[in-house]
């Protein structure tokens, strides 16, 4: 029977110009890896937006996810939040189960 291992998934949605800052923060926090995903459109507290036809990333949002060990998760979230505290976006943390725990 396959064994599953509990880890923490951190999802971050943030303004596209901040992506470099965020990646540097995650590298400094020594996360095992991350993935960046484009977001097509959305709506927040201020207004709706769409990436269609935009030639600048200023109005775009991106999503970044990473999976870390539970013991490391709070430290990573604190570092991420400190980097993007005043920015448009959100950070969530959830439980996930992985098959290869040595990779996270």
């Amino acid at each position, binding site marked *: 029977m396959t064994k599953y291992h509990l880890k923490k998934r951190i999802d971050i949605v943030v303004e596209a*110009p*901040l992506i470099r800052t965020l990646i540097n923060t995650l590298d400094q926090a020594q996360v095992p890896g991350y993935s960046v995903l484009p977001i097509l459109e959305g709506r927040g507290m*201020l*207004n709706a937006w769409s990436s*269609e*036809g935009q*030639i*600048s990333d*200023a*109005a775009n949002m991106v999503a970044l996810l990473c999976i870390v060990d539970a013991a490391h998760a709070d430290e990573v979230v604190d570092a991420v939040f400190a980097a993007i505290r005043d920015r448009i976006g959100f950070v969530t943390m959830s439980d996930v189960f992985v098959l290869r725990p040595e990779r996270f």
Partner: protein
Amino acid sequence: MLSFGLQNLLSPMVLFFILGLLAVWAKSDLSIPEAVAKLLALYLLLSIGFRGGAEVSHHGLTAPLLMAITAGIVLSFGTPFIAYALLRAATRLGATDAAAIAGHYGSISAVTFAAVTGVLTQLSVRYDGYLVAVAAAMETPAIFAALLIASRERKADTGRSEFIREVAFNGSIFILLGSFAIGAITGERGVTILKPFILDPFAGALCLFLLDMGLVAGRGLRQGWRYLSFTVTSFAVVMPLIGATIAAAMAVMLGLSVGSTAVLITLAASASYIAAPAAMRLALPAANPALALTLSLGVTFPFNLLVGIPLYIAVANRIAH
């Protein structure tokens, strides 16, 4: 001037822009994929930069070039202070929003630059190629001026290396200056080789790009109109005219030609919605991002395209040599 204005309104470029606006109004699902829009922007900047550099290689590094660049930097750095003072005096905007908007209005719109050079080419009015370098020089000083303004109000976040990188190595400046340098190095030979790519398709590419700008401007206005009070919207029309007036005076002092005067005035009257927005998001996080972008793209850009450019060319005809 009226017939020229009408001629501009009936030009393919402007009509495609209006088509984009109409598509949004009609709630059409017409859209230009983001990657295509970015490719068109790259192409336009590459073409303009290359042609400007080739022109400069023909005439060399001259005192008028250096003086024009200096004038451009002064314009770009000084305009945000005027914009900020006007916004604080005439609107209810707070210091942060006013500083962010001021940064947009000191910087320039590469697309408006492409539009005015396109119109001048159609009219067979020559302009100095070094104005490409002037345009590139005018992108950044305004951003630093906006930071200075915001720092005085203690509202800026300037402690990030990413901000410096964004401002110094912004993609649109990089391609503009890079292709300018390549054009300067390769000169007439380069133009001959690349003519089928950089000259012949330019007008068509500009039409497609302005169609996209119409769509983006229309969507931005539809979503951001609630932030636009009468006074704030008026700023987006008045500020270009103030910038144009100052630039006109500088152009006369520099002794620029008609075409070059028209370009410098248009640059000073334009507002950035490519380089400045990203830099302002990094430096002034508390500013409302929808406000500056809606003003520069939804109000000032259409104003300049439909009314401003013919006006600035008419003024240049009157005051320049």
